[in-house]
Each structure stands twice: as structure tokens, then as C-alpha cells.
């Protein structure tokens, strides 16, 4: 290829994108819309549609990270998505109930989320529906626990 | 007959005479007869030839070890470090390595083919040491002056790929198998340009023995001048044949650990490593004889010293190429061998034939 894809000035502002999102998905809550940062709280059932809209409509070309936090009564999956065109790092929080930790996988949208979701499954036990190859990555295949959960006490014999 | 042979015959006669005198002194009938039989011509011949071979082998191996030392020091300096330091100028390191290697345990992989495993490495080493016999140091210091020495040398050299294939296969290891196949393919591909360059030399000199080739160069001109393309092709093919960087993919540590000889651990490995250097030394020696006039040179130092000095210089270029380049892939080596070196060797042959026909030489 001979051309260089350049990202020098942002195309649209954070407020613009936030308004677009709220217009299309009223259930999404904008937690923070600061320069270069956009934090959203998204309900679980529309998380895949929101991410798809962010990728296709709002130019979020890159998935930086998929992480999970174990608050004792629920899980939260955090997707960090980057829009280089608009110079924004966005944080999408999805709450999951403790007894049913499943969420739609965003690997079909961004290949970069593949191993992050595998790690979240391995260490935290979150099941990503639609992931092409969900198996353990750090721990051995026959390991029976999810080590990063708060109820897994390090030093206990497993 | 070489001077070495004549000197040693005299020495053997004296030695056997001494042994016979000792046996005679015991005043036992059959021992005196044995002593007399020892002094007959065939026995003297046999013993002196044996001694010549042993002395020559040891000398050649010593100089081969010098090449290993030369490589380590010069390679070190290219990389901005000093190379080996053990002993005077680092010369003792090779002996230290040799002693260490001899003291190791002999391990044979369990599922390997034991007989072929042992046979392959001995065949490899035997072919290398046999080559020492073919190559003279000067017209006075050689084991035997074979009429077809050049051809014989390359033929014995070409025995290498067989032992490499057998060794790689019999080790029962995927990596050695790949390494053996690669090595065999590379060596066979690079032998053809090598042989064609030698044919060009023979066309001009009309003599297949080393003494004949060097004498011709003494009388006319060092063959590197008219056959410069051939010299270059021979040089590149020689680096490939001795499996040095840039052509050392068969033993690329980065991928295959050690290539075909991965499973050999002790003395066998030590001798295999050493014989890689001996083969490089033999090829440099061949280059010197064929293109640089062998032992020809002014009389103020020995002919043998001229030969060794020139070989050292050729080997220095081998080392320089190793220090500067990276390893290239097998298919790139083969492409180089068949698509570049072969046409160059053929052109060189045509030049040689043209020169001969035109009566220049």
C-alpha cells in the first residue's frame, strides 16, 4: 500500500458524539464527556449494538482493552475503545449480575479484543457469547477456578 | 616421492634396525627371524607411509586448530571484542574445549537408530580426515601425490551430504530431519558451481594433480587473474559448502537448535564442530592451490609457509563475510546456487576454453 492514514486534527467533538449516542440509544447513560474522554454506562442487552454503532457510525477504529471488575454483588465489564479520528478514548461500562456473567463478545467487531476476552474468561469467569475461541489463556486448561475473583483467596491450596 | 617420505624412510629403516637388533639380543630364534622380516622393504615402506600419514594428519589438524583460533579472534575484533584470551594470545582455548569435550558422557537417544547414529558421524569425520591426505602443503611435504588429487578431493568432500542425511534421520527428531534435508539440498546445489570452476582450472592447466596445477601457476600466471569470475564463484560456493554464515541455515541455532547434529553430545559433537572448520580450511586450501598459486612464492621463506599464509588470508575473507552478513533462507540459498552461481561458473568455463583455444596459455 502506498498511502499513509493520518490522524492529525479531530473530526468531531466529544459532545457531538455523546449527543449522537444518546439520540440513537436513550438507555445509554453518559457518565463523563470531557475533552478526549467519553465514559458511558450501557445496559447489557444493547451492549453489542452500541459498540457496533460506535465502530461504524462514530469511527471508533480500535479496541484498546476489555477488562472486568469484580464488585462483590455484580461484575462490570469495561470496554476501552479508541477513536483516533476524533482523538477520544472511551470507556463503556456494562454491569452484569453475579450469577449470570455473560455478555456479547465484541471480537466480531474488533479482532484486538480476542485475547482480552479470553483472559477475562480465564481469570474472572465472564462468558463472552459469540467469541470464536473462548478458552483459558494464562491458566492451564484443567484449572477449575477463576483466580481474579474476590472470593479466590491467594495462598489457599487448590 | 616427497622429501618427507624420503626422510621418514631413512628414519624408519634406522628404527626398525634398532628393533631388530634388540630382538636379536634376546638370542631367541623366532624373534631374530621376526626382526629380519621387519627390515624387509615392504614392511619398511608400510611403516614409513603410516608414519608419514600420522605426522601429516597431526600437522594438518594443528593448522586446522589454528584456523579455529583465527576465526575466534578475528570475529571477536569485528564485533568489537577480544575473542579468546586463554593462554598465549588465546591459543589454548581450543585445547581446553577439546579436553572438556572428551570428558563428557556419551548419550544416544533412546528411539534413535543406534547403528546408523554412530555410523553417520564417523563417516562425516572420516571423510574430512581423508581429505587431509589429498592436499599437499608443498611439493616436498605431502602424503601422496595422486594424479587425480583435485577430483579426488572434491569427490570425498561430496560424501558429506550422505552422512548428514543419515545422521539427521537416525536421530529420531523432527528438527534434525529438517536440518539434514536442508543441509543435503544446499550442499548438492552448491557443489555444481564448485566443480565447474575446478573444470575451468583444469582446462587451462591440463593437470588434475595439485603439484601440477601449482607448477603451471608458477610458470604462467596465478589463475585468479584470468579466471576472476571463477574465483569469485568458487569463493561463494566454498562458503556455502562449509556451511558458514550467510549459508548456515542447516545449523541455524535460532530455529533448529543445532541442525542435523543436535543429538550428538560429546566427542562426536566436538569433532563434528572441529571438522566443520577443517572443511572450511580444506576449501580455503583448495582456493589457494587453484587460484592463488599454492605454495609459489619467493624463496626467503619455506614453501609450506607461503601456502599456509595464503590460506590464512583466504580464510580471513571467509571470516569477514561471516561477520558482516546475516543468514539467508534455504530457498534463497538454492536460488543463489542454481540461478546465479551456475551461470557464472559456466561463463568462467567458456572464458577458460576460449583462452586455451586462442593459445594464450
Amino acid at each position: 500500500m502506498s498511502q499513509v492514514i493520518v490522524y492529525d486534527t479531530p473530526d468531531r467533538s466529544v459532545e457531538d458524539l455523546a449527543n449522537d449516542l444518546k439520540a440513537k440509544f436513550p438507555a445509554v447513560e453518559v457518565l463523563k464527556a470531557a475533552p478526549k474522554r467519553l465514559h458511558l454506562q450501557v445496559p447489557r442487552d444493547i451492549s453489542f449494538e452500541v459498540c457496533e454503532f460506535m465502530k461504524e457510525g462514530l469511527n471508533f477504529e480500535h479496541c484498546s482493552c476489555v477488562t472486568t471488575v469484580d464488585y462483590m454483588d455484580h461484575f462490570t465489564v469495561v470496554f476501552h475503545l479508541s477513536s483516533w479520528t476524533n482523538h477520544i478514548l472511551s470507556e463503556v461500562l456494562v454491569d452484569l449480575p453475579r450469577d449470570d456473567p455473560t455478555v456479547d463478545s465484541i471480537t466480531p467487531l474488533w479482532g484486538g479484543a480476542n485475547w482480552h476476552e479470553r483472559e477475562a474468561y480465564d481469570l474472572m469467569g465472564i462468558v463472552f457469547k459469540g467469541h470464536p475461541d473462548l478458552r483459558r489463556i494464562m491458566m492451564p486448561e484443567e484449572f477449575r477456578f477463576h483466580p481474579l475473583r474476590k472470593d479466590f483467596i491467594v495462598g489457599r491450596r487448590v | 616421492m616427497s622429501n618427507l617420505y624420503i626422510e621418514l624412510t631413512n628414519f624408519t629403516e634406522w628404527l626398525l634396525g634398532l628393533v631388530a637388533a634388540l630382538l636379536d639380543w634376546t638370542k631367541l630364534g623366532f624373534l631374530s627371524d621376526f626382526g629380519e622380516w621387519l627390515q624387509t622393504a615392504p614392511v619398511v615402506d608400510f611403516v614409513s607411509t603410516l608414519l608419514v600419514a600420522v605426522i601429516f594428519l597431526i600437522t594438518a589438524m594443528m593448522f586446522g586448530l589454528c584456523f579455529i583460533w583465527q576465526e575466534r579472534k578475528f570475529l571477536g575484533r569485528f564485533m568489537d571484542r577480544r575473542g579468546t584470551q586463554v593462554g598465549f594470545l588465546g591459543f589454548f582455548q581450543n585445547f581446553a574445549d577439546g579436553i572438556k569435550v572428551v570428558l563428557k558422557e556419551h548419550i544416544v537417544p533412546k528411539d534413535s537408530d543406534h547403528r546408523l547414529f554412530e555410523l553417520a558421524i564417523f563417516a562425516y569425520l572420516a571423510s574430512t580426515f581423508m581429505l587431509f591426505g589429498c592436499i599437499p602443503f608443498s611439493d616436498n611435504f605431502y602424503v601422496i601425490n595422486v594424479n587425480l588429487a583435485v577430483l579426488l578431493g572434491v569427490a570425498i568432500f561430496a560424501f558429506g551430504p550422505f552422512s548428514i542425511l543419515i545422521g539427521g534421520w537416525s536421530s529420531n527428531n523432527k528438527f534434525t530431519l529438517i536440518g539434514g534435508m536442508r543441509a543435503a539440498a544446499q550442499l548438492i546445489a552448491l557443489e555444481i558451481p564448485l566443480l565447474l570452476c575446478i573444470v575451468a582450472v583444469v582446462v587451462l592447466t591440463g593437470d588434475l594433480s595439485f603439484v601440477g596445477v601449482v607448477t603451471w601457476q608458477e610458470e604462467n600466471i596465478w589463475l585468479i587473474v584470468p579466471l576472476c569470475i571463477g574465483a569469485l564463484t568458487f569463493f561463494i560456493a566454498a562458503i556455502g559448502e562449509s556451511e558458514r554464515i550467510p549459508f548456515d541455515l542447516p545449523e541455524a541455532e535460532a530455529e533448529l537448535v543445532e541442525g542435523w547434529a543436535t543429538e550428538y553430545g560429546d566427542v562426536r559433537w566436538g569433532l563434528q564442530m572441529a571438522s566443520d572448520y577443517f572443511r572450511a580450511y580444506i576449501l580455503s586450501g583448495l582456493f589457494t592451490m587453484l587460484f592463488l598459486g599454492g605454495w609459489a612464492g619467493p624463496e626467503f621463506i619455506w614453501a609450506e609457509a607461503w601456502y599456509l599464509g595464503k590460506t590464512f588470508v583466504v580464510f580471513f575473507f571467509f571470516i569477514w563475510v561471516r561477520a558482516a552478513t546475516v543468514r539467508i533462507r534455504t530457498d534463497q540459498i538454492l536460488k543463489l546456487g542454481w540461478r546465479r552461481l551456475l551461470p557464472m561458473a559456466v561463463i568462467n568455463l567458456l572464458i577458460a576454453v576460449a583462452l586455451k583455444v586462442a593459445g594464450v596459455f
Partner: protein
Amino acid sequence: MPSDEMWINMGPQHPFNHGLWNLRVKLKGETITQAEPIIGYLHRGWEKMVENRTYSQIVPLADRLCYGSSLSWNHLYCLTAERLFGIEAPDRAKYIRVAVLELQRITSHLTWLMAVGTDLGSYTIMTWSIRERELFLDLLCKLSGARMTYNYCRIGGVRTDLPENYERDVLRVLDEFEKRLRDLESLMDENEPFLMRTVGIGKIDGRTAMNLGLTGPIMRASGVDMDLRKLDPYEVYADMNFEVCTHTDGDVYARYRVRMDEMRESMKIVRQALAAVPSGPIRVKVPRCPPKGNVVCHVEDPRGESLMYMVSDGTERPYRLKVRSPNFVNLSASPPMLVGFKISDVPAIMGVMDMCIGETDR
């Protein structure tokens, strides 16, 4: 060669592996048809471990995430913690941090070059890069006392002030290195076998690279002009004048070229930063417990985009600290770069990716 396909394990113990990981490749003859990297051999449970440490106890642990470029992780952690605590390092500390980070970038790239040299079989490249690296390690050792895990940044600033005559020493080293860099580059750029091994190998195009999560020099070698130091400037990078190095081919040679250019740009930044260092304190006081909340921070690591996500529940230990390592994603995106090439290309392709398993496995 047998014509059926065979799986080969390159690793976990393998001379060319820099670190401890496994690469399973399926070969048809000598061509790779499938590749699968397998990691987890060096998993130390870092993220679980730091949930039991106070914020200042984690500072030296962050160094050990990637021991090849430890200062950038140390700095990332301190930056994230500062954002969480809601404090900012003083200006003097910021300029010092930028200068030292760029020195670390050069060191990391020289370590990478050494690995490339060994993988391709040229020990000359290896010894020359280590020789240049010694110049920089001496500088960093003078500053922080260590050659590998520097532990120099602190939450709220840096640990010690610049030693006497440091600027003079750094400028001397940079002048010397510039001359030697030209030698080093010519050893590779004008080396026909090197070009044979690297041009056209392991190609990946820009859009695929972005989608697969590749960041850093690998992505920039495929024609994507994105550098977090320009896109989302942190510390005082907004005041620095430097170019983002890109290349359009997307092959191994392009990635090598991008890193060599980056070394030159880093030298520029070091000179500017050291010339502009203001006087003042180098550290601010930090409270014991941060406010409740979460914060995300990303920086341009020598290998790509590294990110830390910190959740605090108001106590003196973090509730959750997630590390996004660039190598983790680069490695996951390596199969498309390997398929279709020969097994001899694997060291070239993987070597030029600058693997550091410490941060991949955490």
C-alpha cells in the same frame, strides 16, 4: 519433505524465543498454514498481587512488568495513580520524566535490535547494539542506580534530582551515538542478505492492523500515522517538537526502519526536554488514600499502546488494577503475519516484534 502437514512447537524452550512462550505452527513442507501463539508460562498473578499492596508499594512492582523497558511501565503506573489521586507532578519532574522516558525508549529499541541480530544470525549486529546500549545504561545507572529496573518515577514526581553535569553527559552520549547509529544502520540497510530476509516478509496492511489491535511501531510500519504522544499528549509531550515515523510497506523491513527512525526522534526529544527543564521541586506530597472512583491512562510504550485502568474504593490499596500490555495484543495478531511464509521467516517476523513476555503474561 513429507507432503502431509505437521505441527511443530517452537518453544517454550527455544534459542530464538525471547522470553517463555510457545508458538505452534502447522507446516506444509516449509510453509506455514496455521500459527497459534501460546502464552501463560510466565504468569505471575501481578494483577491479583497488587490488590494486596499499598499504592506506593506497587511502584517497584510496575517496573518488573516488562524488564526490557521498565521505566515506561513505572511511569505509566505513577501517571495513573496521580490521575486517581487528582494531583499533578511539578513541571521539573515532568520534563525530567520525558527526557528519561525517551532515553529508555532508545535503550529498549537497542535491546530489540540485539534480538533481531541474534535471530537473523548476525552476531555483529548483536554486539554492536549492546555496545551502544551500554552508553545509555551508564547514563540511567548514574541517574537511578540500576541498569535494568530503575524504579525512578514516584507517584507525584521522580525519586531524585538530576545528578551533577547530567545534561552535559547526556549530550555527549547522544552525539557519540548519532555517529555510531549511522554505522549500525549501514550494516543493515546496505546488507543484501539482510534485505533478502526482511523485505516483503510478514506483510500486514494498515486497516487490518488497526482492527487487530496492533499499535506502536508495527502499526506505524503499515502506514498508520498514530502516536499517542501526539494524539493524547501526556506529561509535556505537547511542547515537544518531533515527527511521527511511519513507513508504508508493512513488512519486516518497514518495522525495522520505523524503530531506527524513532531512535533519532527520541534523541531530538531528549535534547529539547533537557534544554527546557525548569527549576523547582521534583515531587509533591501524596495523600494516603485516594478518592473513590476509577481512572484510565494510556501512554506510548516503545512497543505500542499500554494502558492502565485503576479502580479505587477509598482505601489505601487499589481495588482493581488492569494492565493492557501492547505485546499481548501484538502477539495475538501475529498469525496473519505468519501464514503463508516459510518457517525460516518465523525468527525474522517474531524477532522484529520486540517480544517481552514479562508484560504479556504479567
